[in-house]
């Protein structure tokens, strides 16, 4: 057991490092492929529609419930100190700084990332990507770049909508249901939230998450084994890896930004 452990570890590292290198190369060639003549603007719009607009309803429902639950739980904690006037601050800060970007990215990984991986994976399994190369169409510029940029644009927009709907969801519970004063709710929020420090930093987080989630989804699709089983595996791995990457990256970004 111990004899085979070290060689296996070495083998895994030996395989992981070139994979990471290939994934990074894929990311950069995808990002810079916007200048390639096969990059199509209408394809990018189509992907933004598929990744962003179609995820909108999910985000709105999730944000509404997140905000409402935050208000309930926050009220429960704050009412013991008679500090329910700070409820608006609590809801807005937790949404803008953490829950908005992270939940948007996690939901995006489940809703759009998995679909991306499955789509590209089955393109590979049915040899559509090879067919493109045969026709001298660059699959990186035609398939990958619009999806990558679509994800990078869609996630921050989804996040800003998530934040806003979440805060109004919190308001809906705090003011009419729990009886917190509406004026205090907004006034306390306004006095303690800064546009740059909280709102823009939260959006920067969302931008990073969008890049990472789309990158992982696209990479998993491109590197999937070209079988039905391989595509299934790649889709699962894409969601798991993207979720873990978002949570890990969130820690690093929070330590750096705030």
């Amino acid at each position, binding site marked *: 057991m111990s004899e085979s452990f070290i060689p296996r570890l070495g083998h895994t590292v030996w395989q992981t490092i070139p994979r990471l290198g290939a994934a990074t190369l894929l990311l950069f060639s995808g990002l810079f492929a916007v200048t390639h003549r096969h990059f199509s603007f209408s394809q990018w*719009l189509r992907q933004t529609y598929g990744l962003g*607009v179609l995820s*909108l309803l999910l985000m709105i429902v999730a944000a509404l419930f997140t905000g409402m639950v935050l208000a309930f739980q926050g009220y429960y904690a704050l009412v013991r100190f008679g500090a329910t006037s700070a409820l608006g601050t609590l809801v807005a800060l937790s949404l803008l700084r953490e829950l908005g970007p992270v939940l948007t990215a996690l939901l995006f990984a489940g809703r759009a990332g998995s679909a991306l991986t499955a789509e590209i994976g089955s393109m590979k399994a049915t040899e559509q990507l090879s067919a493109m190369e045969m026709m001298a169409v660059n699959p990186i510029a035609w398939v990958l770049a619009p999806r990558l940029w679509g994800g990078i644009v869609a996630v921050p927009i989804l996040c800003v909508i998530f934040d806003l709907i979440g805060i109004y969801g919190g308001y809906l519970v705090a003011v009419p249901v729990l009886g917190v004063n509406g004026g205090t709710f907004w006034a306390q929020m306004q006095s303690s939230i*800064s*546009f740059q420090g909280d*709102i823009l930093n939260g959006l920067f987080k969302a931008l990073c998450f969008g890049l990472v989630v789309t990158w992982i989804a696209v990479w998993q699709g491109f590197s999937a084994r070209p079988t039905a089983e391989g595509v299934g595996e790649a889709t699962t791995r894409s969601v798991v890896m993207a979720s873990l990457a978002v949570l890990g990256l969130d820690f690093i970004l929070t330590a750096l930004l705030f």
Partner: protein
Amino acid sequence: MSQRSVDWWVGIFVLLGIAALTVLALRVGNLSGFRYENGYILHATFNNVGSLKVRSPVKLGGVSIGEVTKIQLDPKTFLADVTMRIDPKIKLPVDTGASIYTEGLLGEQFIAIQPGGMPQDLQPGATITLTQGAVNIDQMIGQMVFNKASGTGPSVSTTS
């Protein structure tokens, strides 16, 4: 889905994002807080500003009439000099006082203005000297406990 309707939907999506960001900036962040940019400047010196911050409100009778723009220490007198911007519609008499209070038990601190009765008004850039700094609750409790323990001074209860 035709290309044209995709264009429309993505356009609406982006506009929604911009609108949400604007609402967040104005309603949640305090970008709308620069309401007193054409207000006039007043100074006030305090011996202790507590946790007063830049952009803390200045209130008269509970109504916000301005905000704190700068807090610095005067190196000669060792007093905190607070600069604030006041709504130009509000003219304050010369003998106006300023105190630092806390909103509720855990709320933020603000400057409360007590208008005087003199006919002359404070000119822009003038300094309010009739001030009362932030109340230090720790110090008050310490003093009370000390007074009680030593049995002298104005104790809080039971002095028969």
